[in-house]
């Protein structure tokens, strides 16, 4: 005879004396008359005791286990038995001396680990893995160090590159400035050439008697030497000299043969025309003293005390 199956929680409550009297009485009867229930109750009691031994009980269940269940010597003996069984079960599982049936009972993985040959094999494999792990750690360390060094080198290279770029940019700026200065010089030269052409035009218009020449100090550095064309009828040459800024009150001009520095002609003290920044001198000398060659007009600044010093030299070539 068997009644309805009882929930395990109810069985635990019954074993712990936590059910109402009427319910306890009903289960008391079934514990004696119902074979299935009796088996369930025994199983539940074993699990409850094992739970206590395994430290799995908590809260009220644990409290009632201590206060109610343990109050019986018979039940305390059950707990002691469970402790011994637990230890025996664990030692049986960990003992190498297992019976063939026990070996068959255990899983394939357990069997794999319990064979001595496999144990040695796994030990060797573990050793190999350990050595491999150590080597990998060492290699990893070296690689990290190399990466750090490479990064440092890369940083230095980038720094050097930046410095070079800065230098190149500075050079470019300098070149641009030089280009700008050259452009300015070319522009000045072109302007002077135009003025010379005008002067030539003026010279021609004056006829062959007087030849006029406009000279600036810059012309000598550019390399293009002014040319004075003389004809047989030319008797006098008039030269207009633009001066570098200076403070001398008067000047003296000397005409020299360019190659021999022979003094061909010299002026007295003359006054400059124009403002302090744009002074100019105008001199005149006989054309007959000139030959087809190069000449230098040397301008001396004469101070109030009579001393003098060169303030400019002007070059021109005579063509006949």
């Amino acid at each position, binding site marked *: 005879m068997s009644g309805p199956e009882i929930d395990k929680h109810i069985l635990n409550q019954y074993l712990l*004396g936590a059910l109402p009297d009427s319910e306890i009485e009903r289960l008391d009867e079934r514990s*004696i*008359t119902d074979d299935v229930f009796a*088996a369930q109750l025994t*199983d539940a009691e074993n699990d409850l005791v094992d739970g206590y031994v395994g430290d*799995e009980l908590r809260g009220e269940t644990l409290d009632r286990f201590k206060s109610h269940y343990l*109050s019986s010597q018979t039940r305390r003996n059950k707990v002691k038995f469970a402790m011994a069984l637990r*230890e025996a079960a664990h030692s049986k599982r960990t003992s190498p001396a297992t019976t063939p049936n026990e070996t*068959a009972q255990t899983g394939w993985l357990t069997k794999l680990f319990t064979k001595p040959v496999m144990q040695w094999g796994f030990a060797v494999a573990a050793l190999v893995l350990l050595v491999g792990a150590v080597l990998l750690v060492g290699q990893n360390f070296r690689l990290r160090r190399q990466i750090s060094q490479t990064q440092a080198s890369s940083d230095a290279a980038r720094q050097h590159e930046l410095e070079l770029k800065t230098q190149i940019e500075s050079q470019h700026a300098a070149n641009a400035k030089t280009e700008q200065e050259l452009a300015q010089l070319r522009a000045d030269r072109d302007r002077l050439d135009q003025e010379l052409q005008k002067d030539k035009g003026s010279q021609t218009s004056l006829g062959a008697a007087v030849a006029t020449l406009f000279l600036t100090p810059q012309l000598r550095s550019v390399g293009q030497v002014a040319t004075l064309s003389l004809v047989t009828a030319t008797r006098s040459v008039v030269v207009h000299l633009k001066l570098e800024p200076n403070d001398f009150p008067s000047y003296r001009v000397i005409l020299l043969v360019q190659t021999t520095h022979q003094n061909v002609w010299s002026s007295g003290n003359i006054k400059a025309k124009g403002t302090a920044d744009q002074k100019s001198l105008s001199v005149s000398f006989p054309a007959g003293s000139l030959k087809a060659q190069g000449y230098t007009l040397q301008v001396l600044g004469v101070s109030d005390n009579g001393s003098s010093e060169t303030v400019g030299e002007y070059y021109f070539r005579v063509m006949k």
Partner: protein
Amino acid sequence: MAITYPKKEWTLSASAFQRLLRWLDCGADSGGESYLVMRDRLLAYFDRKNCRAPDDLVDETLNRVARRLEEENEIQSDTPARYCYITARFVFMEYLRQTDRTENAIEQMQLVHDYEKQLTDEAAAEKEDRYECMEKCLQQLDSENRQIITGYYLGQARTKIDNRRALAQSLGITINALTIRACRIRSKLEKCTRECLGDQ
């Protein structure tokens, strides 16, 4: 406190005991197994009632049943198990009438404290004896039963459930069948260790 039972003057004879065994077997010959099962159930019943001498109460219960059988030759009102329960319930109620419940309760509380102390204070030699008896009794089991008892109670919570499922599968039986077998083996093992330790 001594407990007396009015019908204790009657003494169980060999013939009365044989009649009791046959009656408990319900016609089949269990070789006394039914008697032992009933005795264990009654013992657990009185023990759950926190009776101080449950073995005595079991004896009193079974004696009364045997006497009734001897007097009336048969009991047809109830099944053997139910009649045993009814008789046990009467014995328990008589026990309660003769026992100071308050005194019993105080005594039980003291036992709780004593037990807590016993768990930690149990002598190492006593523990060793218990484990030796356990090993000895385990060796008396056949290998399959030994595997079942050590495998069935191994692990905790989910692991224990998984172990049991794997064990049942490896044995080719259901979980319920395994549970019944494990309980029987455990009872047998428990009895063996008790006898080994001289508890009973």
